[in-house]
């Protein structure tokens, strides 16, 4: 792609990532969540791949590294579910505690990020996972259709 497209993409990626993080972190208050935010950030990765080409991206980002991030995100999610096993698996054990424990008043009210128990943390894990996973697939497809086989 031309230099203009590359420059604009490089600037734009910042906003894409910030918007994605916003959607992830506000997931339990406004429409959104881990999956949506992760997909937004992954679309930023797609933008970079389209703008600068997969050959250039691969000098600093490989799908193997992304898949490590993905595993970590999935592990974070399942560990948060495990953490509730004192009562029951998937128990929302943070409700009422200091960390994200605030309970919103019943009925219509302005949203507060500091609520939701484990939901924001799970959103974060899922967001990490989806972001890394989708970027890895797109990168792998781009590299492979560019004629290259992936390494072990």
């Amino acid at each position, binding site marked *: 792609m031309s230099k203009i497209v590359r420059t604009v993409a490089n600037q734009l990626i910042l906003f894409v990532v910030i918007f994605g993080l916003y959607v992830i972190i506000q997931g339990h*208050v406004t429409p959104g969540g881990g999956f949506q935010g992760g997909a937004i950030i992954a679309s930023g990765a797609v933008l970079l791949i389209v703008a600068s080409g997969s050959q250039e991206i691969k000098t600093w980002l490989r799908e193997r590294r992304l898949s490590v991030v993905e595993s970590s995100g999935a592990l974070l999610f399942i560990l948060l579910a495990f953490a509730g096993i004192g009562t029951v698996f998937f128990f929302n054990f943070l409700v009422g505690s200091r960390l994200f424990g605030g309970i919103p008043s019943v009925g219509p*009210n302005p949203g507060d990020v500091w609520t939701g128990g484990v939901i924001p943390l799970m959103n974060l894990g899922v967001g990490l996972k989806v972001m890394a996973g989708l970027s890895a697939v797109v990168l792998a497809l781009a590299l492979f259709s560019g004629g290259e086989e992936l390494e072990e």
Partner: protein
Amino acid sequence: MRQFFGWLSLVVLMVFLVIGALFIMRPFGEPPSVMDDYIIDNAQEEAASNNVVAAVLFDYRGFDTLGEATVLFAAVTGALLVLRASHKKEET
């Protein structure tokens, strides 16, 4: 060819069932809501979340979401596996 007939019979079946289903469905816009009303009423207390859909996703039906994340994980692992190079020798 036989596969074609298998599929065809499946489709004919599906089409009839679906057309049948349309005429006896509950009317649009007035669904029964035994389970959902409980969730709408109690999500703010039990899951401490203003977003009821998020409460369903991560609290009431969190296990589904874990499964869904696992599906994505499996697909990504599978895609990377399918696109990998087989440099070393195949089993002989």
